């Protein structure tokens, strides 16, 4: 079998990359063995936006972010950050952005302060400046008391916060965060959100991938729904939601909801109470009920949306 690594033709508009955008992606393709993970994806992310990348598991979100941040070489297509092609000088592109490492992608035997200093010095910053910024970040993330503790002794939420801090130490213009709120407690999560919203208000661009639709709807100015390695819809949250709840809209675009399987014996004890427990046995008939309100067919890919100035939601905090 040969895999076509040319950008998908259906619905694809050959719009040139937008150098004024924070991120401009065109025809990005990645194939693992024979599985197409990203299939001609195109997207523009405006400067200063809080951009949510959402999609089901295996949709290609993380693969796209990895190709955008120089951590995975694409098979075809281009990715541009602040007008510069990522892959022509990948290290220069990396210095312009801040990527939050996963908790197992850090040196957790360093103390929190040491980890931040390491992240800053690696990027060529002067030590005294890094130390000053590290202390500011530790204070902002409520980690001052834990600055001298090894990160391996941190809780999951503290580790997420220190990972985010390593991505911010060099004051990047773009922050790329893959599932930043996963396993973070509500208080830490709220503090993280405040810091990110403040950063976006000062002109920084935040790109997050998430499964939590409510969070994206509440925090993000823009959203792109990714499915099967392509963008199904992209634009401001209101544009994509098109007057509906974002989660419902997501279901419509992505599909995949099916009727709940009715398992006769899995009756929560109700069957025993009325004397009809598992009467039909394990091979008894099941009659799935069609759900209402779901459009089954996925929508064709839409062309990238023109960059629009961000407007933060009223209820972001």
């Amino acid at each position, binding site marked *: 079998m040969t895999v076509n690594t040319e950008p998908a033709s259906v619905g694809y508009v050959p719009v040139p990359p937008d150098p004024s955008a924070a991120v401009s992606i065109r025809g990005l393709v990645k194939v693992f063995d024979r599985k197409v993970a990203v299939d001609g994806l195109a997207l523009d992310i405006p400067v200063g936006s809080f951009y949510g990348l959402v999609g089901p598991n295996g949709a290609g979100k993380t693969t796209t972010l990895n190709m955008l941040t120089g951590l995975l070489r694409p098979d075809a297509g281009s990715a541009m950050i602040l007008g510069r092609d990522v892959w022509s000088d990948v290290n220069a592109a990396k210095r312009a952005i801040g990527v939050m490492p996963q908790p197992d992608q850090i040196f957790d035997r360093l103390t929190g302060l040491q980890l931040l200093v390491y992240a800053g010095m690696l990027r060529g910053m002067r030590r005294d400046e890094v130390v000053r910024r590290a202390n500011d970040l530790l204070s902002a993330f409520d980690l001052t008391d834990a600055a001298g503790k090894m990160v391996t*002794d941190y809780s999951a939420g503290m580790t997420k916060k220190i990972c985010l801090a390593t991505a911010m130490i060099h004051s990047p213009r773009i922050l790329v965060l893959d599932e930043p709120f996963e396993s973070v407690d509500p208080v830490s999560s709220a503090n993280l959100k405040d810091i990110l919203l403040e950063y976006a208000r000062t002109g920084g661009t935040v790109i997050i991938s998430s499964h939590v639709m409510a969070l994206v709807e509440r925090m993000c100015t823009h959203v792109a729904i990714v499915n099967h390695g392509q963008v199904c819809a992209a634009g401001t949250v209101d544009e994509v939601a098109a007057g509906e709840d974002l989660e419902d809209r997501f279901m419509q675009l992505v599909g995949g909801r099916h009727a709940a399987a009715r398992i006769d014996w899995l009756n929560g004890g109700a069957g025993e109470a009325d004397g009809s427990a598992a009467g039909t046995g394990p091979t008894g008939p099941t009659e799935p009920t069609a759900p209402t309100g779901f459009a089954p067919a996925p929508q064709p890919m839409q062309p990238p949306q023109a960059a629009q100035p961000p407007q933060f939601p009223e209820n972001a905090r």
Partner: protein
Amino acid sequence: MSAVATIVRLRWALTIAAMRKSSAQTVGYVIGIVMGLGAVAFVAALAFALGSHRADPGQFHAATVLTGGFLMISVIMVQVLYLGQGSTLSPAKFALYGIPDRDLGLGLLAAGLAGLPSIMGTVALLLWSAAFRSFGPAAVIAQLVAAPLAILTAMSLSKLVISAATTLVRSTRGRNAFYIIAVLGFVLICQIPSLVANGTIGATNMVGSPAYGVHGVADIEFGSLSGTAAVFAWTPFGAAFQLPFDVMTGAWGALAARVAIIAATVALCFLGVTACLRRDRLTVGAAAQTVTVKGLGAFGHTADSPSGAVCARLFTYLKRDPRQTVLFAMPILFVALMAIQAHGMNDIVWTGLLMSGWFMFIAEGNGLSYDGRGYAMEVIAGASGFDDRRGRVRLLAGIATAYLLVLAAAILAFTGDWRGGTGLAVGLTFTLGSLGLAYAALGMAEVVSVVLMYPVPSIDKPFSSPQGRAMAQGFFPLVQMLGTPLLFLPGGVIVAVLGFTGALADGRFWLIGPVALANGLAALALGTWLGGKLLDARSLSVLHTLDGFASLQK
């Protein structure tokens, strides 16, 4: 007591269940049984052969007590080394059932004694009584009684060491220290037979014996170790093996004292295990001890640059990563072992220094694997491969220089070569040669670590063994070890030319030292540059490989 019986039944139920679940486990178990039976058959054959004629009592005594004691210590060490993997019958798994600590301790001891290794060991030692036939029935009966006592002692000591380690090794720092001590202890114990053989041969056959170096272990004169054996027999490790000899010689007082030692050992071990279980139960869920470090540590002292960051990070990790820390103890061991076996020949001690330089950076040859997924930070930050290599080399070359010079000074003092003359010239030549070899080995390591990586245990579970490790771990370091001498070809050519022109005559052999040092430094510079280029080209591939290794460690 029903809890004890239940735990013993549980042990066998779990063994049978594991065999049912996995055919590989069954095959492994069958192979284990066959090997165990083979060992029992070997002991039986040896015992019957020895018992058919009256052996020299002195040699027989020393051999039995020392070998038995050595095996007992080995059994304990092997149990400790597998501790990191977690035992099926871990006391923590019984926490839900409210079993009294004494019953649980007794049950775990009984379960250990009811296991196949204990049964095989007991049978082997019972059969060993045949070796005492020529010394009379009393000695045979004494050995029959001593056999289960020896196994009981070994099992009690094992349980105590494991319980104590589990209880005490809670903090990360404690676990690291425990790992280092365990590995060094194991290495030293493995050297004991070689040291004993070498020392004994040296004492008896050194002069004018054609057998020296040919028959090796077969020529060991255990008789000369009777003093050591006599002392060892008063320890818990050798007491049980001494009992039949006490009966043979009619030393009834000593016999009673040694039985008391065994009883006291078993009792104290049991009390210790119970105390550990109690402490574990009462402190379960307590937060592990954390260590607080003030300030920047090494990050405040290295160069203010990306390579300085790498240097400081590596230095901090070498202190906190037991897998790597332990390897830095090896040069001292090399030199010490060479010194013990030198028999007055100073050149052999200096060879230990040379070997130290050669093998010092075997771990660095797989350094990126030890970094693990943390290396992603460098890729994310866009740090260059050259900065990475330069930071590592700066630190490791510094460590090698200081370490080898201190060792050289110690050897000069130990051998007396510091007094001057040829000895001093030889010493300085070896010192410069060792430094050159260490630098070349480091240069080689900076290249091979980018291309020939193999999985290492997780830093959190240093005793575990990830899949696919054995094959690569055997082969890849070999490339580094054999490749390092090849880097000395230019220096070799220069030395050969100097030799032919007579420049090395009249005691000027010391010129080899500076040539080796210059060659080593050039190899280091080349390795750092080439390693950096390779890392730039392969950084994403390295990251992908490290992701794969990380999944093997789970």
